């Protein structure tokens, strides 16, 4: 009896040591898979908004992701004004309206193609569609394009820094 209780104690003591080790190694393993500091610090992208032409879709790059920039033409703006969900997504700089979005389908992250004839985006992967302001028109995507954190600096737009305009958009649920 004395022996078996001593063995029981030894078993429990080992269990305690092993549990501490297991938790410690799980933490280390989780952290080893985290994005590296150099990746996290990946910089900011500054866009000069005065160079874009109306109705011409341009793809920029920020943190390895494509950024769609579409300066709204008069016709696009007219359509957008009819729909409050569209107009509130546009960024106004020096009196002009721009769609600036992360160009990844909010379904599973493919890059939808811009169709100049119909002024909309179509995703080839699962058939999702977005209008010229980046709002979703056809499922499966659950929402419009996400808008990257930005701050307005004169006629420039800095991506990666959350300015007041973007914060307001996020708070009101226009973007994630």
């Amino acid at each position, binding site marked *: 009896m004395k022996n078996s209780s001593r063995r029981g104690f030894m078993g429990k003591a080992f269990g305690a040591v092993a549990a501490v080790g297991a938790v410690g190694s799980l933490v280390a393993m*989780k952290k080893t*898979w*985290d*994005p*590296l500091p150099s*990746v996290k610090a*990946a910089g900011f992208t500054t866009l000069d908004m005065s160079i874009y032409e109306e109705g011409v879709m341009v*793809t920029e*790059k920020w*943190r*390895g*992701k*494509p950024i769609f920039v579409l300066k709204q033409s008069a016709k696009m703006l007219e359509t957008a004004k009819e729909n409050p969900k569209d107009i509130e997504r546009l960024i106004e700089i020096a009196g002009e309206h721009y769609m600036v979005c992360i160009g990844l389908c*909010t*379904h*599973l*992250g*493919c*890059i*939808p*193609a811009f169709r100049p004839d119909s002024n909309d985006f179509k995703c*080839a*992967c*699962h*058939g999702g569609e977005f209008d010229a302001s980046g709002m979703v028109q056809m*499922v*499966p*995507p*659950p929402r419009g394009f996400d808008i990257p954190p930005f701050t307005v600096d004169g006629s420039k737009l800095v991506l990666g820094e959350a300015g007041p305009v973007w914060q307001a958009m996020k708070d009101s649920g226009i973007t*994630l």
Partner: protein
Amino acid sequence: MAHFTKATSVKDWLDQRLAVTKLEKVMMSEYWIPKNINFLWAMGMILVVTFALLVVSGIFLLMYYVPTTAEAFNSVNYTIMKEVDFGWLWRHVHGVAASVVFLIIYIHMFTGIYYGSYKKGRELIWISGMLLFVAFSAEAFSGYMLPWGQMSYWAGMVITNLFSGGSLHADGLVEWIRGDYVPAQAFLGRFFMLHVLLIPLAIMGLIGLHFGALRIPHVNNQDGEEIDFDVESKKYLDGDKAGSKVMRFANDFMSKDMMVVGFFLIFFFYLVFWNYGFAMDPVNFDPADGLKTPAHIYPEWYFLWSYEILRPFNIDLGLILFAFAQVIFVLLPFLDRSPNTCAANRRGPLFAIWFWLMLSNMIVLTSMGKLPPEGIFSTIGLVAAVLFVVQWLALPIITSMEKKV
């Protein structure tokens, strides 16, 4: 110390230390296989051989492959394909085997479903088999990342995005899996590790479990007959080989098994030498580009059925049904409430219809998954996806109505 005597032969020397004679009996000559089987019972051996082909070809590819985003594409498409003597052979064997192994897995699975080989003590064989299917799927996916072509990159993007859980927006989890905001060096490095070490280890362990689970219930037979293996094997060993319902695994069964493997290998190497194109997507011969999605992103043919279940719905419902499709086959032994262990066609009309409908529907889902999501194809895909779910929900009901045959 245990008592050892002077060995009379090499075999005796080994016998005293490793019990090789006993081992040979347990594993081969006195491992009993029913006689009442057909060529479909050889799929397991074909899978073992295909896995061996994958390991050997993989070892040779591993010597020249470079797991960096800058070098990966060229190390495969230039170094291995153009510089290394016979490098093309290892690549084509590896690619074709990765595709064909799924064809055999599906045949193996549906053979099991047809003959009721997941019932009455064989549940663990089925479950370990389905875990192997999951492990092989992970192995195929991680391997698909390595050439770092356009399909590698975009399949990596789409599949890792599944882990955001739709409206849960677990973007942190997705970034943790990738080690970056998008698939990049950290992603390639970890999927390389998974492909060449961790998942193969898991597969080997699961193969051991799969074989172990087979040992006590033994292999099923064409009639699902419950065989008394002690009585039948005694009959065989006493000389009544013709009257016994069983035969030795080696060499009786193995000789026929390897015959089928021989036919398979002729077919396999015909594909490797003359028709490997189906396993080499042309889009993946463009290097990965994070700013350009290919016009159509589709998985390899063996994932198309579950992809088609994801596609017609909004993201949350799509993900739920996709997850359902991934796990539901595992539960088959518990969803089938029927007392019968025999061929599907003999279990009454309901299960026979269920089986053939499930098999046809998987083929329909696979075909629709390959076609662009437009017009009539979207509709057929939607109907097939709904039918798949309905069939599984109906399974416990129709099998509990089944009469004992």
